[in-house]
């Protein structure tokens, strides 16, 4: 019976192809959106990922994600260091600052201040570049996933003009030796780094904590996070708990902090919500069209179902046939959709787009297809089951 149903399905090739393409399109959208979301979220916790030597992150009890910058009292550092199981603890400062380029243009930067002594948290760059951070006013610049935002004028005539900004002057990429003005403090670029791109994308300036302290607006405290390395054999989660118990600060293992950050984005980020809404709209259109097409497929074949019923098929057999058709279309469509997703995703990832195919992307696509196919089959099966097989006698 299943075979007959599948032959019927294949026999009506235009509808069959339409159904498969519909499912493939919708499942592709869902999987692709999920993978894109995973990619964005991965970029959302780039700061955590690029500091793998930190096992535990310590922060203000109110901080929920790496995006929030509430500062800690400077005593936090020594309090954390005194907890058993902590090998080393380094401070890190996060802040935002508007920088003025030599031609007078303004660009917002994330400033990351790293430990003066160990430079823990500094981006991977050549040793001389990193060591350069120890100089006064020094900073390493990083595109942080942006493009064309680090442009400084080519000609010295356009640099630091007295007659107002020269925004249209020809520009080149910022490089070592160039200077920026942050909050009226001169900053000298000592080099470039290429760390993980950020979500949302924005250019970064790494500098020593001491330099950051001078440049960022004056505040009572200048430490946002304390990065902690756990002793060998000490479980980061246990250590985090212990730090929390002893200092009253929030302490999270690296993995937990990533999870916190994703959760925070989900709850707080309007971008993520908008993106989700757009994708779900597109996916529901795809799925809706597919469901209607499956329904039409069944109603177009009612006469054939009537013949089959007249020849003694039970309701169970009819239901089995409709569900077999729905499942075949679902499996085939999902397979194609996922395949296209992997191919397009790989290309997108190579092109620098945030695309990360994690287990839940195909799972989400598959689940949506499963739900919609069952629904479509349920509404399609009704006319076939209720059908009076007597119509077979009518001539056509």
């Amino acid at each position, binding site marked *: 019976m299943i075979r*007959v149903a599948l*032959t019927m399905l294949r026999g009506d090739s235009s509808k069959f192809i339409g159904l498969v393409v519909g499912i493939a399109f919708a499942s592709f959208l869902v999987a692709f959106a999920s993978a894109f979301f995973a990619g964005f979220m991965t970029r959302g916790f780039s700061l955590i990922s690029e500091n793998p030597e930190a096992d535990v992150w310590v922060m203000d009890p109110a901080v929920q994600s790496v995006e929030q910058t509430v500062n800690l009292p400077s005593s936090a550092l020594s309090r954390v260091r005194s907890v058993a199981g902590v090998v080393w603890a380094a401070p890190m400062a996060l802040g935002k600052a508007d920088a003025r380029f030599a031609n007078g243009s303004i660009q917002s930067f994330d400033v990351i201040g790293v430990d003066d002594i160990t430079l823990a948290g500094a981006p991977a760059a050549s040793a001389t570049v990193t060591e350069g951070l120890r100089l006064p006013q020094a900073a390493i610049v990083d595109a942080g996933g942006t493009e064309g935002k680090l442009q400084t004028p080519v000609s010295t005539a356009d640099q630091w003009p007295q007659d107002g900004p020269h925004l249209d002057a020809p520009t080149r990429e910022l490089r070592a030796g160039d200077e920026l003005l942050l909050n009226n403090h001169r900053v000298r670029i000592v080099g470039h780094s290429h760390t993980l791109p950020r979500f949302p994308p924005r250019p970064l300036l790494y500098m020593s904590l001491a330099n950051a302290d001078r440049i960022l607006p004056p505040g009572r405290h200048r430490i946002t996070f304390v990065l902690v390395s756990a002793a060998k054999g000490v479980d980061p989660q246990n250590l985090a708990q212990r730090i929390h118990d002893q200092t009253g600060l929030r302490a999270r293992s690296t993995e937990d902090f990533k999870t916190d950050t994703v959760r925070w984005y989900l709850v707080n980020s309007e971008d993520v919500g908008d993106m989700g809404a757009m994708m779900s709209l597109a996916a529901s259109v795809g799925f809706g069209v597919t469901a209607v097409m499956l329904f039409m497929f069944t109603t177009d074949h009612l006469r*054939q179902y009537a013949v*089959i*019923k007249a*020849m*003694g098929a*039970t309701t169970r057999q009819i239901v089995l046939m409709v569900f077999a058709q729905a499942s075949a279309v679902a499996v085939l469509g999902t397979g194609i959709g996922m395949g296209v997703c992997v191919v397009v995703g790989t290309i997108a990832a190579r092109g620098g787009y945030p695309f990360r195919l994690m287990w839940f992307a195909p799972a989400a696509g598959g689940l949506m297809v499963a739900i919609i196919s069952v629904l479509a089959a349920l509404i399609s099966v009704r006319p076939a089951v209720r059908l009076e097989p007597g119509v077979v*006698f009518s*001539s056509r």
Partner: protein
Amino acid sequence: MSPVAVACRGVEKTFGTGAAATQALRGIDLDVAYGELLMLVGPSGSGKTTLVSVIAALLPQDRGDCLVLGQDLRAMGKKDRALFRGRSMGFVFQAFNLLPALDATENVSLPLIIAGQRRRDAQKVAADLLDLVGLGGRAHARPRELSGGQQQRVAIARALVHKPKLILCDEPTSNLDHDSGQAIMDLLIHTARAPDRAVVVVTHDPRIFGFADRLARIEDGRIVRTDSPRPAPAPGGQA
């Protein structure tokens, strides 16, 4: 085994209600014996299709009884009725009603598949039947690749494949030209008619009346006459 394959008594059927009501059957009494080919003839709208539908238990009558192969199908549950129909009846339709996606063999094997037989066995039996109706060479043709007459041959093979005790044909020749119609009736006579089987053929085509063992004339929902198609060479005279 009951002596007759079909026994209808006082069968009535009305479609619709009130002013729009059409009384399609107005008290039908009809017996069909095993071994005979009964032709149900009459003008358009006289109730032929309605009567066959009632006999096939595809349509419930309003009043009267219809015993089919000794069973009152109305007393059965929906599922048992479907199973009984699948086991005991074969159908040939005016519109052929083959499944367009299936080839000839698959179409013929369908009643066996529905009854739960294994595909391979069913197809073997189906292939034999196709040979019998003269289509052995077109076993894998799809319906649209066959002429009307060939399609009806496939339909006849399908009606016979599960060895049913009752075969119901509604206007089997009216979509065919004269020669094909004659050939189809010839085929029905030679393959379908059997001592332990009854065949009912609905038609209003007088050119095939000669194939019947008995003609039942239906007019306006009543059987008005039952006779043999060729008047017996009557020495004594017959009214």
